[in-house]
């Protein structure tokens, strides 16, 4: 009923979807798997109308369509259950269910609440959720909210002629096992009314629930397999498989680290609900990669090391000194630099110039009694611009006007010029094109040669393997397995994946 033919989607500098063929039949559950950045979420967004494809055809029962927005897609029977929930928590359950479609309960602009509550009860029955529709959404548990979200999507049944397609984006990532079972049973039951697209990092679940599985890699569908008698290993190999070019990750410039100079040490570090029992060491010149699926706790670990989060258990030592007060200010003072994943939000101040962004973390070095020493600051900025070959008209150009790669360089030089020796990189190459990625890899190597230690949450496993000396594999907030890169037994992506999921 829903069919994609050679669908393309291009963003500036990135071809996110390359000729995707994709099909969902009536009452079918289709799995969708792939690494981070393989194009799964872009594909989902095209399906539910958040993005518009710019090549190929999207067909519903053979008729080509273009969804200009999610509402358009909804009117064609396509609904999305979001991973990051889209319910407005200060509204009641029923208001959320019928958000944007209240007109059916209105007379002369006045809402008939009783009628809406009745209708909401009908919807909640479909997902077997027994809550009062007048309940404020924030009072519900996470699982209950997920079900309300599903109920909201199922209202399409009454509104739309024809069949439904429901997208489930990582619905299980935060649910306990028992509730996952309930959700799966529900989905199986509902297939008489709708087809499902199921996206998950957990391979066993995808195989358990889906009829067919699409495997994506680098914006392409590399394989479609029947879940009956399919092989987890084979799918995983298809997800990652590619010859790794050694030069791409500057492996020739990878030097051994200094065994005795420990920059960061954690002992049984833990934070409730995020990670636990994390013991790791980072030495000068080392690249330590933390890998794991989305939400496995790696981000929390580096945020704690920087001081943005306060761990609830264990100890943290920076340069041999125990850390007692956790704050970003103390982190910066101990020589930690944090490069977060959302550059626009946490990496650069868009309205400020290159030089201003660069010196944000260490203004005390350029000022006496809070007054800038003229020249020193600008001179240093000039040096870094040429050292990292940042492409900018002048150092007074607004950072917001720079390309993603150059913004990333500004952020890196901010920390380098602040004298940071412990560099925390959270997906430093996300959204960058190949050339800019290589620049970032170069910078990582240079930092190591300068005696910095780097903790990396890599965008792909390939990147982690290419860059890191040491790799810690995380699952559900705990370190599952350590790998040493460059030893006798060079691990491959499949080895890592095995411990991740």
């Amino acid at each position: 009923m829903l069919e994609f033919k050679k669908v393309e989607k291009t963003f500036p500098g990135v071809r996110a979807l390359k000729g995707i063929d994709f099909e969902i039949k009536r009452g079918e559950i289709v799995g969708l798997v792939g690494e981070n950045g393989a194009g799964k979420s872009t594909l989902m967004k095209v399906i539910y109308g958040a993005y518009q494809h710019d090549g190929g055809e999207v067909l519903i029962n053979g008729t080509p369509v273009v969804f200009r927005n999610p509402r358009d897609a909804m009117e064609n029977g396509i609904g999305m259950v979001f991973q990051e929930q889209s319910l407005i928590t200060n509204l009641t359950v029923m208001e959320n269910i019928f958000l944007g479609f209240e007109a059916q309960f209105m007379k002369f602009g006045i809402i008939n609440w009783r009628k809406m509550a009745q209708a909401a009860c009908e919807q909640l029955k479909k997902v077997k959720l027994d809550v009062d529709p007048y309940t404020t959404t924030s009072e519900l548990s996470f699982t209950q909210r997920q079900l309300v979200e599903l109920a909201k999507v199922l209202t399409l049944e009454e509104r739309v002629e024809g069949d439904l397609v429901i997208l489930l984006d990582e619905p299980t990532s935060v649910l306990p096992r028992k509730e996952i079972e309930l959700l799966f049973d529900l989905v199986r039951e509902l297939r008489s009314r709708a087809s499902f697209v199921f996206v998950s990092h957990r391979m066993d679940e995808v195989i358990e629930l889906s009829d067919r599985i699409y495997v994506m890699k680098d914006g392409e569908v590399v394989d479609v397999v029947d879940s009956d008698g399919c092989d987890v290993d084979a799918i995983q190999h298809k997800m990652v498989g590619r010859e790794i070019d050694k030069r791409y990750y500057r492996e020739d410039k990878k030097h051994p680290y200094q065994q005795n100079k420990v920059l960061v040490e954690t002992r049984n570090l833990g934070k409730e609900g995020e990670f636990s029992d994390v013991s790791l060491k980072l030495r000068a010149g080392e690249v330590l990669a933390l890998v794991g699926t989305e939400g496995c706790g790696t981000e929390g670990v580096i945020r704690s090391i920087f001081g943005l989060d306060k761990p609830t258990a264990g100890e943290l030592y920076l340069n041999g000194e125990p850390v007692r007060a956790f704050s970003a200010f103390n982190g910066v003072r101990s020589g930690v630099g944090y490069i977060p994943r959302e550059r626009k939000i946490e990496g650069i101040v868009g309205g400020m110039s290159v030089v201003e962004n660069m010196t944000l973390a260490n203004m005390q070095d350029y000022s006496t009694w809070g007054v800038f020493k003229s020249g020193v600051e600008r001179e240093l900025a000039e040096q870094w611009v040429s050292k990292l070959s940042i492409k900018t008209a002048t150092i007074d150009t607004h950072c917001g006007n720079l390309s993603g790669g150059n913004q990333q360089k500004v952020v890196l030089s901010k920390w380098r010029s602040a004298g940071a020796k412990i560099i925390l990189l959270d997906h430093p190459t996300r959204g960058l094109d190949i050339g800019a990625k290589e620049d970032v890899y170069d910078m990582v190597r240079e930092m190591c040669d300068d005696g910095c230690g780097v903790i990396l949450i890599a965008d792909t496993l390939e990147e982690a393997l290419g860059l890191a000396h040491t790799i810690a594999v995380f699952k559900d907030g705990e370190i599952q397995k350590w790998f040493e890169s460059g030893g006798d037994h060079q691990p491959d992506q499949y080895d890592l994946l095995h411990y991740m999921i």
Partner: protein
Amino acid sequence: MSKVLSKEFLQRWAPLIVLFSLCIIVSIINPNFLSVRNFARLATSSAAPLMLAIGVTFIIIMGSIDLSMEGVMAFCGASLAVVMLQFNSFVEWGFLAIPVAIVFGVAIGFVNGLIHVKLKIPSFLVSLGIGFSCIGLTMVMTGGVRVSASDKAFRLLLTERFFGFPLMVYVAFAALLLAYFIQKKTALGRNLYAIGGGEELAHASGVKVERVRIIAFALAGAFYALGAMFAVAQIGSVASNLGTGFMFVSITSVVVGGTALMGGIGGVWQTLVGVLIVAVISNGMVLVGLPTYIQEGVLGVLVILAVALATNRKAIQLVK
């Protein structure tokens, strides 16, 4: 590309262009506008609003708002007059009243910032409350009567003229330069822009956001005190209504000058232009002979118009 550039150019220089056009229009209608006397009158009447507007500029750059200026102004003005009365003459210790007033301004701003940051109450509400409390305190201090501040030496600020302009115009200009220095050359100024442009990021870069916020409110308080001083020198006496009307004028000026209410963009020179625009319009309306009640209405329309022109609607999706 050039279209984008010219639009940016326009948005950036629009306030200055508006100022010049206004001057031309008013002088065509009434040539008296272009006399030194009138310019001196303009500058004198701008001195106090400029100080208030500069103070609140720092706060607005940070993305917050301060509505306490009317109260702070009244309180500082009253304490200035009261302290001055305690001494025989301004030259003999009476001048101490000025630093005392400034210290009061700083202290009130400090409390303002402290409550805002520590109790996490929106700056809008804290400052509004503080402002009203200050008016109440002023009433208590003055007993509800007008306090005279007619010391000759103090009023030299108004009466002593160089090149036709009163002394206070020069003092105000010096204060503007000081403000520009703080904005451009100090870590505090840079931090204000960083917080306005991306508070999360500033925090993640090790900026002590809370401290900067408190200092900014204290700094604003100092400028409000200077504004009070000019206003008192101009009038020659103080009552608890000294600040009435200044909140609207100062915030209007900041916005008309092109400082973004969202924070991160703008500065004290823009504020100067904004103050002058408002002053020229008021002055022009008098010269043209418009009744006072219409003048206020015109200013109200003006502030909405200015924001409408200056807002980059593409960049903003939600407005609250």
